[in-house]
């Protein structure tokens, strides 16, 4: 085999950068399995003397409630957002013409501007809806669910429109000419063809909702209703002991990290589509 200088240089660069990249994750894992005495005495990047899983079990018990709350909101919201988003995307695609020219940019603008700038009007709307409907929405799980849907369904629609637009038009048109109803075409033809794009959008949305901090922070009180709030609640506890909050951060990051490890290519595909690098 011929010696390749460029591969050697690339290897050196990648070893250096990847070490830097893993450092926080390593610190997180090492820190969360340190005992109290170990965490008080040793600096962050030292290996735990004896791995102690008590902290992580305690953190899991403390976080289980908010993890469950987050899952109850994020999983259905993801599925509903992607489902109605893909249906709308298909409708835009079929309608074509001016709708296809103007609706996706209108969605894209609201998707790419800082989403935090729209939280106050949304909360004021939620407050008005409470008065009209006589149901509490602010600081409730279902209220948070609704706000997630409002934010993320347009984003899912945009991603699904990009995927739908890549479908071969002839297949869809042939099915319509055969007399199939649009909904039947969507179910029997479009959804199966969109499989990977659909999954990519699902995975991307799920990770976004799990990791979102700003929306639950603004929409709820206390720290119980979303996992990121719960992780944040540990930050306020000052002192020199980091094992508890690292264990909490590790537990809370585990679901999106597991998704990333096992379904990373879908996440990456969703991310690329979201940012224009994908096809």
């Amino acid at each position, binding site marked *: 085999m011929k010696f*390749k200088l*460029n591969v050697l240089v*690339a*290897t050196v660069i*990648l070893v250096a*950068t*990847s070490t830097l*990249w893993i450092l*926080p994750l390593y*610190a*997180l894992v090492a*820190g969360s399995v340190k005992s109290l005495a170990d965490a008080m005495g040793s600096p*962050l990047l030292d290996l735990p003397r004896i791995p102690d899983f008590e902290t992580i079990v305690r953190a899991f018990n403390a976080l289980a409630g908010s993890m469950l709350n987050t899952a109850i909101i994020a999983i259905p919201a993801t599925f509903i957002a992607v489902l109605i988003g893909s*249906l*709308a995307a298909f*409708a*835009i695609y*079929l*309608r074509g013409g001016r709708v296809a020219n103007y*609706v*996706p*940019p209108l*969605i*894209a*603008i*609201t998707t790419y501007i*800082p989403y*935090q*700038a*729209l939280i*106050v*009007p*949304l909360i004021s709307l939620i407050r008005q809806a409470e008065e009209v409907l006589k149901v509490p929405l602010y600081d409730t799980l279902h209220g948070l669910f609704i706000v997630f849907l409002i*934010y993320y369904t347009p984003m899912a629609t945009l991603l699904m429109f*990009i995927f739908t637009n890549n479908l071969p038009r002839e297949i869809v048109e042939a099915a319509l000419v055969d007399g199939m109803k*649009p909904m039947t075409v969507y179910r029997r033809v479009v959804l199966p063809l969109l499989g990977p794009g659909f999954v990519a959008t699902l995975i991307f949305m799920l990770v976004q909702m799990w*990791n979102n*901090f*700003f929306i639950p*922070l*603004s929409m709820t009180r206390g720290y119980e209703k979303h996992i*990121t709030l719960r*992780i*944040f609640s540990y*930050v306020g506890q000052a002192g*020199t002991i980091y094992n508890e909050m*690292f264990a909490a*951060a*590790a537990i809370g*990051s585990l679901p*999106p*990290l597991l998704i990333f490890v096992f379904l990373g*290519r879908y996440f*990456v595909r969703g*991310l*690329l589509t979201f*940012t*224009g*690098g994908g*096809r």
Partner: protein
Amino acid sequence: MALKLRQFALMALPVLLFIIILWYGIGWNIYVSLTSYSLYKPRLDFVGLGTYSDLFSDTAFINAIKITFAWAALLVLLGNLVGLLIAVAIFQFESARLRSLLTSYFVYPLAVPLVASGVIWRWLFDSAKGFNVYLSKLGLPEIQWLSGWNALWSLIGVSVWVYGGFIALLYLAAFYNVPRDVIDSALVDGADALTLMAKVVIPHSKLGLLLGTIFSFLFALQMFDLPYSVLFTNPFTMTMVIYMYNKFAYMIINISAAACVFLIALSAIIVIPYATYGIRKWILKVM
């Protein structure tokens, strides 16, 4: 075979409703920013541009603008540099599996909740337990990572860690789209790896630079989770979104709305061309 309008409206109904709500939100911000609506004056009295003159005479907001701009400029610059370096390094390997494995590896910070990253980095910057322990062991001077303006530079560095791999991903996507025959003909001409990258692959990958710049700018404008979870409302890391959130938390709604309008207007400089032209040209390829 176009869909009938009624059928279209039916299939897209919830999405259309949500888009209207979000656009209503933009309008609401503009409207409320022209009023005196706040905890002290909970009425929608029209005050014209008075709110904006209050906003821009608030030194905290001017500071937040400067911080956000510094963040955007440095994230664009460093993010692109780091992203390009990683992308070029990964591109040297032939194996597609290895390439995609390495790319995913560098993207992982985007899968971690930013709040969790904030918790970790806060401690890595801790003077008694973090990097400084190792710096002094090596005989290097300690750095006060989070004091004064250092806090801003440190957190900008963390944001490069968060988004650098993602920018590398954009560059790699652009590299893979460089026509094979262009690369082959350069190789036939005897170009070495460095010449190939510098003269052929990178010049053909301007889209990577453009998208890397667009999105690092937009992510910098949205910066909230990271500075807020590390240092709350520390004036040295108070971005525009933190300022806006703070005003909202204290129920000074009109100022918060005016800050939102400014933030939206700023992002619109990039978002409107991207949403109307960029997506059609680069993604949908209809232009």
